[in-house]
């Protein structure tokens, strides 16, 4: 059965986790990164894989509670088991079929091997095992890696990058077939979170870094902070924002936007905020201000009014010097005299690689294709080149 990560964007990049592979989430100590492993487990649990979750720093009940907080009812799946390495440590009896006391590393080793043999996907908190069992336990962990390869099971490991000795870090990195870094965007405090592919040995891929938010319930959501929706007066920006958003508000006077449209949508694992700007020239300062903070632009044009295209181009230029990627929504395609996208490209002198998507915001046709096109731009090479956050130590 195909096993995937269940993490937005990541699955598009690495497609699947083949048999006998070890995937390690390499987590910044100040970031709540364990949820990545939980999300991978639950995704595959739902797909019918036999999954085991190892807990050592807290009880099985607390572990299940953490899953539940994200809306993942693991306890209702017959193909789910917990490996309890906690109860024995604190002197409590365990209710789990698979359990061992971490004070007896041989016993732990035996139980883990049994689990690896019997399950498709096994989550192991590698750094917590080292923390509790001591640095010598790395030898045992090495045996689990080898055993998983031999038995063609998949290990999903979490490694919290506390300042361990270099040889431990190397050992874990070298033994992992894939390393996904979960990090913080460091300022004087951590102000944002990202994940990125560091290594995948079964596929030739470019590195990627994606911002994320944790949503309860929901889990990891790729996060695009702000998307600017701009365009000339009466092009249909507000209609567009409302058509794609789960919730949206507009501040308008006499039917036209004088302040802002704001919309929010959850789409394909992304959490997106849309800001629609007023189209009138006297509001251009707002456009510049928003452009400074936005990460991408959707330019809405009225396909029936080529006379507004110069103004559209002007608005695009206002935000262009921020180096933002943009897509064009060729709106009002439901009207008989609407120009086709290629005609608009010619009239606006837009480069070939700028996506122009025919839409009818009023009817809701094509609006999500615009979002798709922008997401592709944002998570593609531009994102990596311009937004790779500084990797912290």
């Amino acid at each position: 059965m195909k096993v995937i990560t269940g993490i937005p964007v990541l699955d598009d990049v690495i497609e699947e986790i083949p048999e006998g592979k070890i995937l390690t989430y390499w987590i910044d100590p100040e970031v709540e990164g364990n949820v990545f492993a939980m999300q991978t487990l639950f995704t595959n649990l739902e797909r019918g894989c036999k999954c085991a979750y190892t807990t050592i720093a807290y009880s099985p009940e607390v572990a299940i509670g953490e899953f539940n907080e994200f809306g993942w009812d693991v306890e209702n799946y017959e193909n789910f088991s917990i490996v309890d390495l906690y109860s024995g440590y604190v002197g409590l009896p365990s209710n789990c079929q698979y359990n061992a006391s971490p004070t007896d590393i041989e016993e732990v080793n035996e139980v883990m091997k049994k689990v690896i043999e019997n399950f498709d996907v096994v989550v192991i908190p590698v750094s917590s095992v080292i923390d509790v069992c001591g640095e010598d336990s790395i030898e045992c962990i090495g045996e689990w890696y080898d055993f998983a390869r031999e038995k063609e099971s998949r290990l999903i490991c979490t490694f919290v990058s506390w300042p361990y000795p270099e040889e431990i870090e190397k050992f874990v990195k070298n033994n992992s077939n894939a390393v996904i870094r979960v990090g913080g965007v460091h300022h004087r405090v951590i102000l944002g979170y990202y994940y990125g592919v560091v290594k995948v040995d079964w596929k030739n891929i470019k590195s990627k870094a994606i911002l994320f938010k944790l949503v309860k319930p929901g889990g990891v959501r790729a996060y695009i902070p702000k998307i600017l929706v701009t365009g000339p007066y009466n092009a249909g920006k507000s209609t567009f924002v409302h058509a794609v958003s789960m919730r949206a508000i507009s501040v308008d006077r006499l039917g036209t936007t004088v302040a802002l449209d704001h919309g929010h949508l959850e789409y394909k694992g992304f959490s997106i905020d849309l800001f629609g700007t007023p189209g009138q020239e006297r509001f251009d300062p707002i456009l510049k201000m928003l452009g400074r903070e936005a990460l991408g632009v959707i330019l809405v044009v009225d396909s029936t009014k080529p006379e507004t295209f110069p103004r559209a181009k002007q608005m695009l230029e206002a935000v262009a010097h921020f180096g933002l990627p943009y897509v064009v929504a060729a709106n009002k395609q439901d009207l008989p005299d609407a120009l086709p996208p290629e005609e608009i490209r010619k009239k606006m002198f837009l480069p070939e690689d700028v996506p122009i998507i025919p839409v009818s915001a009023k009817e809701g046709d094509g609006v999500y294709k615009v979002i798709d096109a922008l997401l592709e731009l944002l998570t593609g090479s531009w994102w990596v080149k311009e937004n790779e956050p500084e990797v912290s130590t």
Partner: protein
Amino acid sequence: MPELSNDLSNITHQLTFTLNVIYDVYVIIIMNMSQVLPDVQLKKGSNIMVYGPAFTGKSMFVRSIFREFIRKGYGGIYVLTRDSAETLMEWLDIDYSNKYVKIIDCVTKSMVGNVKDSDSIKYETVMDLTGISAKISKFFEDFWRSGVRDIVVIFDSLSTLLMYMNLQTVFRFLHILTGRVKVAGSVAFYIVEDGMHDERTIATLKQLFNGVIEFKEENGKKYIRFVSSFTQTEWREIVVEENRVVVVV
């Protein structure tokens, strides 16, 4: 009965935590504290160990300090490994909606199982250092985003962590936490029990701190002093009452 001065909260109430720019470094000068800790200056970014035998008033002392910082407009993060958040809130006599107080309760979850986090109180288990670290970091971010830049952190106590985890593990955890406190320009106090750990443990931990507020008990009397590589104050006699620490005049 010895003659008693004002209780600590009154003393600290007289204190002014003034911010002075000295060579571009912000320094918190604890003034008028001569009765307790004369001339103690804590630079922003300081990590202070609070060390002494059980029942000498360490917890009471840090709680008073915490309360005082909050009153001065600091954001406060309190990590509890021995008391519940409820107990602390009661002691502090602070409303749950107070946006300056954030608590990480590492007790309740192990006792009663799953408890739902709120904006100001998060629940973790004492062995989940990653969870604790991530929650502290989240609180830092929350304060930062709401415009609160001055932050005090209390860790009560490290000894509980050392009961469950080996020294190396706790050291690694503290390495990250003290680093964050330093970079964020905050002040943090960490309680360590005297008598629970060997000398090597204490010596190892001390490397991470800028100074130690020491407590001791001799002939039935309790004392306090501050020690750092630059300064050492005299021992001052104190009396610990039910909810206050009192300096003997």
